[in-house]
């Protein structure tokens, strides 16, 4: 029965579970040992920054379709708002859901409270302060000009301090765990905590000149290689591994099924982290980077298909026996589409890393389409599913508007399809027109504007897709806001009424 799913854990019965000696008996764990306040804080930040980051995204999509939308002001031009959009959706929206999921799931998987409540709070407020600092400095044009690492050096140092505080709390919790075995989701979280620290420090090394300006320690090709070693692993270790951790925890929870193959998940984890770290050079094909290093990047990118699809299949097959619930449960709908888009974009990525395909796709809108099939499809849909699943657990109340979650799902799915398809088409047109030559061997379309003009309808479609996705996210924010308000007012839903007693 539905209401039992949110009942007091001490009375929850798990008749069919195996409890090996090394694990604490789950029925003896008291929910109150967990720090869920910090989970609720990160949850709220995820929703708020998600709406803000997507609004900036829709704004710059509008600017590309209709340039007067840049308002003629320096602070609102595309060049300044674009890094604001990427930083907001990656580090604010995706970052906060990773922390939400990590704080919720690691306490439960390790059966212990976070090591230090104080460090959890410093982590939360420090991270939000960094986001606010980014939202102020980027429109002012203060930047290091490194993609996804635009923030100026004082903010970079703040990120290191807050990340170390998070890491101390994380590993402190791991050290004081009550369960012997470290579940696969936690391994994915560990790779996130360690690798992001290394990537951020190495790529951001710079000599400060003034409070706002600095000079990078790298130059030329070395700078480019370090930047894309960082840049691609921001995708790998900020937008992939922590979300695979979320998948391995929240998907089995939502489906109420065990992981399809835990043994596959072990091979999945180690091959994925081993291969990912070498793939950066695929951003520098046909550049001054030594040929062998380019080839290395291509080979590792192509190999990455195997663990990525292993993970995708493990996620989808975990749903075996629960597929009938996908029809009615919006959470599972979001997860199924998220994992499917993970599979699609991890097929597309290795393909685009091959030299022949890259020569067509590089610098075109195809790359933007690829990134958004991963970001909107995988990261965004995983986030929405996790948020909807967490609401009744964190606030002990069903969604006020359950049907609105399903509407959100369809708006988001249609939005992603419009976005990716329009960008594929735009990218192919650009790529083909840039390289087209006439019978005399001269460029067929030497005027850049001739090609840019052709993109208008696709920029319009992309704007529509992004707008649908954004409207869905606003509906979710409203739905969650109303649910939390109702929970605070003490109004029980019919289905939660018995659980509250």
């Amino acid at each position: 029965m539905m209401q039992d799913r949110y009942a007091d854990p001490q009375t929850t019965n798990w008749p069919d579970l195996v409890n090996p000696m090394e694990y604490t008996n789950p029925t003896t764990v008291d929910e109150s040992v967990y720090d869920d306040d910090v989970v609720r804080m990160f949850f709220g930040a995820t929703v708020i920054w998600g709406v803000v980051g997507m609004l900036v995204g829709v704004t710059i999509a509008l600017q590309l379709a209709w340039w007067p939308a840049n308002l003629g002001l320096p602070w609102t031009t595309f060049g300044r708002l674009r890094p604001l959009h990427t930083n907001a959706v990656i580090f604010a929206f995706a970052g906060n859901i990773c922390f939400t999921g990590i704080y919720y799931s690691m306490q439960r998987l390790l059966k212990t409270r976070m090591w230090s409540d104080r460090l959890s709070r410093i982590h939360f407020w420090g991270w939000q302060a960094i986001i606010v600092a980014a939202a102020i400095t980027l429109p002012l044009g203060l930047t290091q000009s490194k993609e996804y690492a635009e923030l100026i050096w004082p903010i970079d140092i703040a990120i290191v301090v807050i990340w170390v505080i998070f890491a101390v709390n994380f590993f402190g919790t791991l050290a004081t765990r009550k369960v012997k075995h470290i579940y696969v989701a936690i391994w994915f979280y560990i790779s996130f905590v360690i690798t992001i620290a290394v990537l951020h420090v190495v790529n951001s090394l710079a000599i400060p000149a003034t409070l706002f300006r600095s000079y990078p320690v790298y130059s030329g090709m070395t700078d480019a290689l370090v930047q894309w070693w960082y840049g691609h692993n921001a995708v790998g270790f900020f937008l992939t591994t922590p979300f695979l951790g979320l998948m391995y925890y929240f998907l089995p929870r939502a489906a109420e099924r065990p992981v399809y193959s835990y043994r596959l998940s072990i091979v999945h984890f180690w091959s994925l982290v081993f291969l990912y770290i070498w793939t950066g050079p695929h951003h520098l094909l046909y550049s001054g980077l030594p040929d062998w290093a380019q080839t290395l990047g291509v080979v590792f990118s192509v190999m990455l298909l195997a663990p990525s699809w292993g993970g995708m299949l493990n996620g989808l097959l975990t749903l075996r026996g629960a597929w009938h619930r996908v029809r009615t449960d919006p959470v599972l709908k979001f997860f199924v589409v998220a994992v499917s888009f993970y599979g699609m974009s991890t097929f597309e990525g290795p393909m685009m890393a091959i030299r022949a395909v890259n020569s067509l796709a590089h610098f075109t809108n195809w790359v933007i389409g690829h990134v958004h099939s991963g970001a909107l499809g995988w990261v965004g849909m995983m986030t929405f599913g996790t948020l909807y699943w967490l609401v009744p657990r964190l606030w002990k109340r069903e969604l006020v508007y359950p049907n609105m979650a399903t509407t959100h799902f369809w708006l988001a799915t249609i939005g992603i399809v419009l976005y990716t398809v329009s960008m594929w088409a735009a990218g192919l047109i650009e790529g083909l027109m840039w390289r087209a030559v006439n019978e005399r061997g001269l460029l067929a379309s030497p005027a850049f504007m001739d090609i840019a003009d052709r993109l208008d309808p696709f920029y319009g479609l992309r704007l529509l897709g992004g707008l649908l996705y954004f409207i869905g996210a606003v509906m979710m924010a409203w739905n969650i806001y109303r649910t939390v308000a109702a929970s605070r007012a003490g109004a029980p839903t019919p289905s939660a009424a018995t659980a509250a007693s």
Partner: protein
Amino acid sequence: MNPLLREAAESISLGWLAGLVTAFFIVWFVAWTWWAFSPKNKEKFEEAARMPLSDGGDS
């Protein structure tokens, strides 16, 4: 790069090293996969697959 270092780097071929490293990682991968899928670990990992469900959570 220092011209002397460049000359030194170009004068030696590290093909054998690349081969060795590749072979090492292949053996490592096969051994790791063997360990993960070995019958003696089957039961242990099937229990681990249920850990999210038995985590004393609130569902």
